[in-house]
């Protein structure tokens, strides 16, 4: 799991929703070992701490990574001022990433994303393109926050969009389309990233249907590489409790081991 720290050129920039930015970055070295579910740790000029941003898509042929992030504060606002041709100072790729499985072709994979937790699910869906049916269940606050719907279709995923206020797609939580898909009895794996209440609901649903599930966690982070032990999360394995690092031991954990 080698990682690199360098400045990489921005090839493309797009504001895909109000305050949500998509960047494509040319970084062949990190790309060579990058996996979906990993993240990059980006320096925001003038700020002490880097910003951890999950990898949205990986293009090994072009040597590019795509990241999508939301402006949440002054640091991400600073990052969003970077333009095509500018350099992005990143430590990448970091973390463990999702486990991509070899499944028989009649099996379905479900990816569940909520809000700014949606981007890492795109690259995960793409891993199963032309191999398995992928159902993408994406939840957003409202129509104006919907992102990447066309991209999920591009990678061949059957996509259901839900909004909290019903202004786009189905009104309500991601659990309804998730259960609908699980009831078909073909699902073999669930991946999820999003806000804690959503993750709890997905973890519980996966347990009820007894389907393996991996979730990606988020925590305030300093070093990003495991040294500072800042980004703690509680994990229960084999009846024992552990405090692990989201950045290095995660950010992806088995659903049944996560204590939220």
């Amino acid at each position, binding site marked *: 799991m*080698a*990682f*690199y*720290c360098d400045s990489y050129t921005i090839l493309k920039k797009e504001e895909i929703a109000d305050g949500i930015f998509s960047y494509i970055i040319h970084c062949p070295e990190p790309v060579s070992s990058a996996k979906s579910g990993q993240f990059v740790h980006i*320096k925001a000029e003038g*700020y*002490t*701490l*880097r910003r951890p941003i999950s990898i949205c898509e990986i293009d090994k042929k072009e040597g590019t990574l795509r990241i999508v992030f939301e402006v949440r504060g002054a*640091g991400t606002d600073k990052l969003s001022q970077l333009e095509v041709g500018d350099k992005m*100072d990143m*430590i990448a790729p970091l973390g463990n990433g999702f486990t991509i499985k070899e499944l028989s072709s009649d099996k379905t994979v479900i990816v569940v994303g909520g809000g700014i937790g949606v981007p890492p699910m795109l690259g995960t869906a793409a891993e199963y393109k032309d191999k398995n049916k992928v159902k993408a269940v994406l939840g957003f606050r409202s129509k104006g926050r919907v992102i990447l719907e066309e991209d999920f279709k591009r990678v061949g995923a059957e996509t259901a969009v839900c909004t909290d206020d019903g202004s786009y797609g189905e009104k309500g939580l991601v659990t309804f389309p998730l259960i609908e898909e699980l009831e078909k009895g073909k699902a073999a794996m669930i991946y999820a990233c999003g806000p804690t209440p959503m993750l709890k609901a997905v973890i519980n649903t996966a347990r009820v249907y007894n389907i393996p599930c991996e979730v990606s966690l988020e*925590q*305030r*982070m*300093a*070093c*990003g*590489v*495991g*040294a*500072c*032990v*800042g*980004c*703690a*999360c509680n994990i229960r394995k084999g009846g024992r409790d552990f*405090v692990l690092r989201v950045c*290095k031991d995660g950010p992806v954990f088995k659903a049944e081991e996560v204590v939220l």
Partner: protein
Amino acid sequence: MSKDLSVTVAGVRFPNPVIAASGTYGFGQDYTDLYPLNKLGGISCKGTTLEPRNGNPAPRIAETPAGMLNSVGLQNPGIDMFITGYLPQLKKDGNVIIANIAGATLDDYKQAVERLDGTNVDMIELNISCPNVKQGGASWGITCEGAASVTKTVRAVTKKPLMVKLTPNVTNIVDIAKAVEAEGADCLSLINTLLGMRIDIKTRRPILKNNVGGFSGPAVFPVALRMVWQVANAVDIDVVGMGGITTAADAIEVMMAGAKAIQMGTAIFTDPYSPLKVIDGLEKYMEDNNLDSLEEIVGTVQPW
């Protein structure tokens, strides 16, 4: 032309004066993808206690203008794991290794240091200054009596070079430094983090689950520099300076204030290569000023 950047602190030779600060570099395993550890002058390992500890609940990290807060609270795998799991590899690679030891009771310190005494660790840094762990409401380092008693207890059980790390969260750090020196400390390191706080104004909750945490980064540099200067002028033992050092110029300031070596921490989070940049900058400074040893600049500030 390549210069000899080595410095000697309490009899221990460091190949250069830039040491990774405890709590910011783990046990040296996490940055080896970027550069070999032996580029650094040394590594002060993560604060280690007699028994493993899980630390404080998350969030443990908050950003500040020109700095950060942490409330990790000494999460560590315990002294036995340090000795058997990490130290052999660290020493095999030829690095100068400092063990950083913390405890709740005098006996905790004593037992942990006793176990280290027979190892090949180069130096022991006594952490009597972690602001994140409750110990009867106060840490050992905030009174002369407390600081002296830990130093005395540990001094009695080890001949290893002993460095005591001081907290800035005291009325007079010079008094603490003198008390520690009197009990046989071989050198001092300062400063540990300042106690700080941030509040999320939307939730009206502190960002840190521990409410308060240790403040570090460039913002604390002038406070650290002032304290290094005061302490170095008041004691005869060596001083290792830290607190917000980010550039070679910062390191030179701290050495001119009286530190023989420096530690870097938060700057590594911003730029993992920053220690190497400081080392390069120090070498260039030596060349530009025709220095044969960096020790020539230690304590050379000429106060008004």
